[in-house]
């Protein structure tokens, strides 16, 4: 169930350039179950910034009642968030949306997890769940440059992990698609989160297989009330039917909505 809670900040650390790892604690974690869901954060009290910021759940520790987010301090809101300190309370609304369907990968299957930049975080909890249910995981993670790469080792512990950087400063030079082709990776299910051009390429190349993608869209409410985040459906691209990224997504099966 969606709850609003002022959760305790127990860790805040810059793990790569402008990339922060934030751990929050509170009973709201009890409600978190699906990898790929997100929370909507009020980064500070008061009216600036006014709107909440959607950030994916990266890791869930139900025993400690803690969850982890990874975010890039970029605009006003995330920069303010990055200045919040241990011991403070952060206003969280969540968990929101529908996550990745873990069950679509069976015991013994190979799941390919493809992340781009700040789209990588939700894949971590997903990967853990897949591994726990006996699925073999392969990770292909794309970043702009070496300085913004994060969680490489953590993913490595769960399965083979390939890194691509646009400028070639780490791993393969190029895009995630370069890596998948070069390595000739085969898979039963593909899960992905990252920039839309990347998702489009994956849909184009592998859309005939089981591919699940997580979308981003500017949001206001995050709960389905404002109609900010709608997208057309592929079977009615110019009509009035629609999906809301916040409640029907953020994860969709490739081919379902217009990217």
């Amino acid at each position, binding site marked *: 169930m*969606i709850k*609003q809670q002022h959760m305790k900040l127990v860790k805040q650390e810059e793990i790569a350039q402008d990339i922060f790892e934030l751990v929050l604690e509170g009973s709201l974690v009890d409600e978190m179950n699906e990898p790929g869901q997100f929370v909507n954060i009020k980064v500070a009290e008061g009216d600036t910034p006014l709107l909440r910021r959607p950030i994916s759940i990266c890791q869930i520790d139900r025993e400690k009642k803690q969850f982890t987010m990874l975010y890039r301090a970029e605009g006003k809101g995330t920069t303010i968030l990055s200045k919040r300190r241990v011991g403070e309370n952060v206003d969280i609304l969540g968990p929101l949306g529908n996550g990745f369907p873990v069950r679509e990968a069976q015991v013994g299957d190979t799941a390919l997890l493809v992340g781009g930049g700040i789209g990588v975080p939700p894949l971590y909890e997903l990967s853990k769940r897949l591994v726990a249910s006996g699925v073999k995981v392969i990770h292909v993670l794309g970043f702009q440059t070496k300085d913004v790469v994060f969680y490489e080792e953590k993913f490595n512990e769960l399965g083979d992990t390939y890194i691509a950087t646009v400028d070639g400063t780490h791993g393969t030079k190029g895009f995630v698609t370069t890596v998948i082709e070069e390595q000739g990776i085969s898979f039963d299910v593909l899960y992905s989160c990252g920039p839309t051009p990347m998702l489009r390429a994956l849909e184009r190349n592998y859309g005939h297989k089981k591919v699940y993608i997580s979308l981003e869209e500017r949001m206001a409410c995050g709960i389905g009330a*404002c109609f900010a985040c709608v997208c057309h459906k592929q079977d009615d691209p110019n*009509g009035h039917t629609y999906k809301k990224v916040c409640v029907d997504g953020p994860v969709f099966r490739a081919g379902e909505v217009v990217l």
Partner: protein
Amino acid sequence: MNRLAVELPGLSLKNPIIPASGCFGFGREFANLYDLSVLGSIMIKATTAEPRFGNPTPRVAETPGGMLNAIGLQNPGLEKVMAEELPWLEQFDLPIIANVAGSQTEDYVHVAREIAKAPNVHALELNISCPNVKTGGIAFGTVPEVAAELTRRVKEVSEVPVYVKLSPNVANIVEIAQAVEQAGADGLTMINTLLGMRIDLKTGKPILANGMGGLSGPAIKPVAIRMIHQVSQVVNIPIIGMGGIQSAEDVIEYFYAGASAVAVGTQNFVDPFVCPKIIEELPALLDKLGFDHISECHGRSWKEVCLTT
């Protein structure tokens, strides 16, 4: 005594707190969070004759103390609202205010006539002020004669009282208000959003795919307060006030200005529990300010109030 109960044309409200149109959908999402029956009413999302997808995304952008939206009146259309949304809302103890929109007079008239027949629709809110539709829309709300004519036509067909929602994007709000009052409006709701724009620093292009959008949130509150203060002194129909309401204190400020009930829009996105919170906090605030009933706050900004009670 219910210290918050308010009587308005067509509407017996147990309290004057109403989620604003377009900020609450048809209530389904919020029904998962709390019992909607605690509300005074709901202003449902603008309904047009045909289903509308609305504008391309991005449809929202943030501004200092506010936000822009260019949703473009996305809605499932009259038929579906009548067949699915309104019947679903009957489970709650709530008079519904149906927000009616269109691009031509005939659209408005058609939707108004039909939707007023729904048993739980106790009033219409005529949206003559949406800045996000290309044809009609905004023009209806900025020319007094046009606004009045539309009001008259809708009044002819509506079985329930008609509230007209005013646009703040005018030089003289009083003129428009008086025109629609004379045309038979039973009440006013104000204000809709101010027209605004934000531009992306990296691309140099407007953030909203639509270019312009409607500015809402706390940033516009002083404009709304000013307009309600001006209009409430010269009309004899009640005003439902809105624009940036976040707290019980804001509600009182609106009553002082001359509102008889209020609607909460943008803040539902920031805090989905804001409406029940305000309803809960109001009685204590009335105590603190020394009022028995919220209606005592009405119009204090301009009324000569007799201080010995």
